[in-house]
Structures are given as C-alpha cells and as structure tokens.
C-alpha cells in the first residue's frame, strides 16, 4: 500500500480533513473521500476539462493535481456554487439555454465558465470561446454552451 498523507483544506467554504493515498489525484480524493461526484474523470490526461475545479482562485484539471497538494488550499467545486439564493447565474443560464445534454462535461464547463467570469467582468465573446478551449463536450456542438456563458456574462455586467 501507498503511504497515506493527512490533508486539511477549505472545501466549498468549510474546513475538510482527510487522509489520502500519496499517489491519488485531487479528483479521486474529491470523488471518493469527500463524496463530491460533480467533477468527472473522462480522459485523466488534462485534455477534456471535465474534472475542472477552482483551487486558490485558479481553474485546474483536478485529474492532474496530486491529492496531497490539496493541503492548505481553498477549493471550489460545482457543488459549492449552490447558495441560499439558489443556483449560480452560470448554472441558471445553462438550464435556460438548454446547454446540457448528457451532462458529463457540464460541471467542468460550469466551473471553467465561473472562473472566466470571476476573472474578467468585462469578458468578450471571443475571450469566452478561447477560455473554454480546454473543455470538451461530445454532445452539444458547443453553440448552446457558449450562448449560456455569454448570457451569464451579460446578465452579470
């Protein structure tokens, strides 16, 4: 067995502690240890973005992040977007624009979109398209996803 390492992080606003195998990815820890199954494993190679979460304000592919490196970090996953006011504006726009088909890419798309809008309140349509380059969707053909993110961006502006 591989060594287990104690980690403590701020996960969706609350302190979380666990002991994780040293060879795990952050994605495996989120899904298996913390029961947050929003972020998905698809390629496991950084190519598809379905595992995207926000760590210390930066969007990353959690499949490539070592779980041990979660220690001391502040992590937001799609589960953390829900507030007392209901779903996040990006989630609402995805629902309204019909940007979800099978839904496998959706949590990653939404977290990447959230990151882009948090980073740049004045984002252009072209910047949104480029910012989503690391997220693959096998169903929608992207048009409705891009529409949804543009809608959320314009609603916030």
């Amino acid at each position: 067995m591989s060594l287990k390492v104690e980690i403590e992080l701020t996960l969706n606003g609350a302190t979380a502690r666990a002991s994780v195998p040293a060879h795990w990815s952050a994605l495996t820890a989120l899904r298996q240890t913390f029961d947050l199954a929003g972020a998905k494993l698809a390629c496991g190679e950084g190519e598809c973005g379905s595992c995207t979460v926000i760590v210390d304000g930066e969007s990353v592919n959690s499949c490539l992040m070592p779980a041990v490196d979660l220690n001391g970090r502040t992590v937001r996953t799609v589960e953390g977007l829900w507030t007392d006011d209901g779903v996040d504006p990006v989630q609402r726009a995805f629902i309204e624009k019909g940007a979800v088909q099978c839904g496998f890419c959706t949590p990653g798309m939404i977290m990447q979109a959230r990151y882009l809008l948090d980073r740049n309140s004045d984002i252009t349509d072209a910047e949104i398209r480029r910012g989503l380059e690391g997220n693959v969707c096998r169903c929608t053909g992207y048009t409705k996803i891009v529409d949804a993110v543009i809608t959320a961006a314009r609603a916030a502006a």
Partner: protein
Amino acid sequence: MSETASQAVPRIEAYYAPTSLEEAVEQIAAGDVAIVAGGTDLMVTANGALRRIKRGLMNIRHVPGLDGIAETGGRIRIGALATMTDILESDLLRAKAPILPATADRFASVQIRNAASVGGNIANASPAADMVIPLLCLDAEVELASWKDGAVSTRTLPITDYFTGPGKSKREAGELITAVEFDAQGAGGHAAFFKTGPRPALEIAIVSMGFMARIDGGTLSDIRIAFGAVAPTPIRAPETEKLLDGQTLDDDLIARALESADTEIKPIDDVRGTAWYRRRLARVYLEEELRNVLEG
C-alpha cells in the same frame, strides 16, 4: 482506467513538502524522490506516471523563492514555479521580453496554463517544449541547486547548452531547477512565436519557431531563431542568424535564409508528422516571419 488505480498500486513510501531550499535539495540528494510542481506532465494518465515512483514524492510548491518574475539590474529572473498564466499576464515580460507571453498564449488550455510551471517544462526536456523556444532566443541561463558538502550549491547553465537529447539534459539527478534568468530586452525589438498542431488549443507542437531581431532602417541585427520539434532537442539556428545579421531583407536573402535553416534542422517522422512536413512548416514559418519584418 480505474479511479482507484487497482491494477498496480504504486508504493510511495514517503511524501515531502519541504518549506526551505536546504530541506528540498538535501532530501533530493538522499535519493529516490520524484519532484512534482504543477503535475501536468507527471500526473498524466491518471496517476500512471506515479506508479513508477519507487519511494518518495516531493511537492516543491512550498519552497520559498521558487516563484515570481522580477527584474534586478537589467536581468529578469523567472522562478521555476512560475506558471504559464503568470508569464502570460506579466506586465514586466510584456514590456521587456514579449516573446515569453506570446508563447504562453499558445500553450495548452487555461486550466493547464494555471498549473504548468516553467521549471517543469524545462525539466521534462521534450524536443517540443514550448517555453524552451523563447528562452533559447533570450539566451537564458538555467539555475540549478543541489546539496554539496552539507550546504546548498548552485550553478547556472546556458539553456543553449542544456539539452542533450529527447528527455535528456545536463541536469544531474540531485539537482533542482530554481529559476531561469536572461537580459531584459530594450524597446524596439521584434519578437514572434509560431506553433502548429492538429487541435488549436491543446497541441504538442509539430513544429514551433521563435524569432527575435532588431530592425534599424531595414537592417537586421541581434537575430535569434529557435526551432522546436525538428531535432532531438529544441535548437537555435546559428548559421541562419549569421547569414541575416547586418543585412537588409529582400527576396533573395529570404530565399537563402530558408535554404540555410533547412540545413540546420534534423526532423524525423513520428506520429505527429513526417520529416517532410516538418521541413515544410519550418520554411513556411520562417518565410512568413521574414516577410512580416520586410513589410514592417
């Protein structure tokens, strides 16, 4: 691929997250640790690479002094942990080494750029490593730290002399890359980065090219041309640089420069492209760039 990696459970027996350079290099000297920075090379194939680690995993992200981008006395220092996003968004680099942000802009996706470090890109020593191309153009030096006789010892190697083959370099097993350094560039220089691959966002370059020059009244000087993925290591094209130096561009000189560059590259056929295609692309990029310069 299973999330529990049940086929072959790796045996990592020790995990280190050093908080000083001394601690880091002393532990590396003690042996058998895999260094991880952003993890975008090491972690590929869902923990696959980690299966090969025999004993220790070392996370260098808490070592102070390995991050940041700063200028002192005309020299710019980029810490090994600086990410592609740090490089892309640096005002200092945009003003004084614009070829670096131009390259970061063509590097993978946002998520990868947020994690991928410049130290990892150099350590990986891929013939197609993108960030190496502008660093070759800038005549950068790679700073290496190791543990010798009970103390931290550092040395620097010119990046032009650093790589020895695919995945190979002069970095010794006990050495940590701590930074890269190069001269800040004055105003009025010309710089560009070219790269191609099948998917615009996440491509390993089939061919990449960096170009820097000064242009005064049509005369070229201080020319630096670097190519990636056309030889066992990323390379400069010194003969072509010499041919162009002090000259005024015209159609004939451009034609001779393309011939010269063709003799300096040694591309191979592989899954990403044929040698013929790579030669073709290298010509197309150099011609496009020289015509950009000619046409101002």
